């Protein structure tokens, strides 16, 4: 209890509250601007929060992302362009509602159910993370090895597109993580004689490149269509939301629960949660035929799913240091920079800090209601900000931000290289999330693997010798074998069908 009071005292610091407010406005803007994503918001915040104490730095990221994921709904409803990929799943539905003259209901539902989803995910985070940390305290290198492997496996199989390309993306990330001498043998690998590469690639310029510069490049090569902002004003958005909640409580609950599970799985974040949730909503709905014509049910379900995923992604990130999505992958880097190393001990050594982060989560999701209301009211003017001015400004900001971490021009080059890499990968349908996860977890994977091998004295059986490690290991192997099993079954079925056809 004493820690909770201490946490409240930490949060009530004017600096923290100011940062929360500022990053909330920043997040709303980034989310509402098509072409700027929530992950980009976090990547751009890293250099700005570099000199801040740990709590305000983390608070900025929590608040900005929660706001950005909600605000992505705004241009979806008004322009049929999702503000962030997390709103893409139900963008057509939202726009159809606007055309039916229900823009107020749609935007209000987006706001209210984003907050509900975010709060749901936060409650799960607050209740499960400390309990999981108790379990994680008993983990040895074997459990961590399997946990990281399972996480990377999920990232490969959940990523959109073919698992083969996901695997290739993951390997590229792991390869990038091997650069430098920070490995168990302390031998400099793939440094090409460069002093800068001795300690490996710095996470911040890489992330700024992959999530911000790549977007600017994408903007530069697509024709800039001026956004046609609708002229009519937006009235009372909260009217009728209570009735919606009474009518669709199950949709809100199912969306939030599914988002929480998907968010907590490594590699899948808010965007995938929204897609799955929208699909499930249509399947379980009493009126599936209304979907696509401007029906609010799917918006409620997917809109709560993406915000709950955002909160739940922090569960594995804080407890095990395994990020639940790209955003928490960046956050983990920041936690290390700030000396708040993620892992179960963070709950014992600095409980007040963790409780303070939890309070920030509640605060951000509650603050979303008034600030989101303001953002919706101001949307027409925000969307009028010309993107041909905005994109160069973001690019210069990226340059200065990448430079600011080490005051080194080398990092600007790293940023450009990774911006091109991410842009190129995306154009060729290689998912980005597995690369980021491989990059963040590569060191941890190798460390735990080598430690385990040394402990086991080369006997692979030891990897399955402890109950939790064994379970995780078997689960991982099953996931890897599943495509082969599926193919075998499909092959058998085809052969049987072939036989039947020949007999008849």
């Amino acid at each position, binding site marked *: 209890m004493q820690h909770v009071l201490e946490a409240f005292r930490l949060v009530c610091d004017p600096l923290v509250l100011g940062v929360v407010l500022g990053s909330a406005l920043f997040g709303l803007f980034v989310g509402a601007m098509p072409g700027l994503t929530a992950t980009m918001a976090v990547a751009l915040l890293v250099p700005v929060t570099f000199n801040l104490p740990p709590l305000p730095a983390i608070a900025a990221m929590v608040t900005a992302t929660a706001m950005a994921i909600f605000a992505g709904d705004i241009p979806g409803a008004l322009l049929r362009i999702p503000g962030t990929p997390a709103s893409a799943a139900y963008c057509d539905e939202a726009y159809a509602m606007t055309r039916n003259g229900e823009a107020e209901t749609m935007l209000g539902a987006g706001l209210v159910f984003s907050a509900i989803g975010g709060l749901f995910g936060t409650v799960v985070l607050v209740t499960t993370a400390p309990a999981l940390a108790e379990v994680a305290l008993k983990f040895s290198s074997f459990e961590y090895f399997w946990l990281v492997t399972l996480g990377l496996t999920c990232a490969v199989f959940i990523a959109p597109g073919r698992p083969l390309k996901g695997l290739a993306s993951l390997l590229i990330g792991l390869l990038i993580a091997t650069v430098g001498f920070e490995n168990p043998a302390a031998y400099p690998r793939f440094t090409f004689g460069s002093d800068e590469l001795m300690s490996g690639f710095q996470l911040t310029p890489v992330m700024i490149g992959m999530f911000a510069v790549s977007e600017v*490049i994408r903007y530069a090569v697509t024709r800039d269509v001026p956004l046609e902002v609708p002229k009519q004003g937006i009235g009372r958005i909260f009217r009728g939301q209570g009735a919606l909640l009474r009518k669709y409580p199950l949709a809100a609950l199912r969306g939030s629960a599914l988002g929480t599970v998907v968010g907590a799985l490594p590699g899948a974040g808010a965007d995938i949660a929204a897609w799955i949730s929208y699909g499930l909503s249509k399947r379980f709905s009493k009126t599936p035929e209304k979907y696509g014509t401007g029906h609010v049910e799917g918006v409620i379900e997917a809109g709560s799913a993406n915000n709950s995923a955002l909160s739940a992604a922090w569960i594995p990130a804080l407890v095990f240091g395994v990020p639940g999505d790209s955003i928490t992958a960046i956050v983990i880097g920041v936690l290390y920079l700030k000396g708040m190393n993620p892992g179960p001990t963070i709950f014992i050594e600095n409980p007040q800090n963790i409780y303070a982060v939890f309070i920030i989560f509640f605060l951000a999701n509650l603050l979303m209601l008034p600030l989101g209301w303001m953002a919706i009211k101001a949307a027409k003017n925000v969307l009028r900000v010309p993107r041909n001015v905005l*994109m*160069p400004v973001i690019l210069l900001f990226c*340059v200065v931000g990448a430079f600011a971490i080490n005051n080194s021009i080398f990092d*600007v080059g790293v940023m450009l290289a990774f911006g091109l890499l991410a842009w190129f990968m995306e154009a060729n349908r290689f998912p980005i999330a597995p690369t980021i996860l491989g990059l963040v977890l590569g060191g941890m994977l190798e460390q735990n693997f080598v430690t385990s091998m040394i402990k086991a004295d080369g006997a692979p059986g030891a990897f399955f010798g402890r109950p939790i490690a064994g379970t995780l290991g078997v689960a991982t192997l099953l996931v890897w074998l599943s495509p082969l099993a599926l193919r075998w079954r499909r092959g058998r079925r085809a052969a049987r069908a072939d036989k039947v056809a020949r007999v008849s």
Partner: protein
Amino acid sequence: MRLNDTLSGWLMLILGLTIVACALTFPPMPGQNIGPALFPQIIGGGLAFCGVALVRSGRRAGGPAWVEMDDWVGRPRMVFNFALVVGALVFYALAVDTLGFFITGFVFLAGLFFSFGVRRRWIAPVAAAVTLALHFGFYTLLRVPLPWGWLERFAW
């Protein structure tokens, strides 16, 4: 720019094999049977595997073009924009120490504004204002030592 899966596959195979070959030169850890080479070898092997699988699936899918250019490549304006974004970053990296942040930042922004079609009379004032604002934010508030270059005499 979109590569045919066969071509991506070949590139990946070559990359994977190169990594394995490089890793063979890494020294072993004394007294241990695993060393710094093991992980890169697994990764290289994995990339080579993905490469072969991509080549196979690319062959099956067919398609004559090795490299398929996006439609923007046909438009000189877009090609120019692409080169400009990359060029602007290279220019910044090369010039900032000599010219200083103010001049480099201003030229950087003005060039991009110009080719993205911002109205002429807005280019100079907006570029100057943003450069000043970023300098204030990072140099004065966050204490990042942005270089002064030619304007060293006026440094504050």
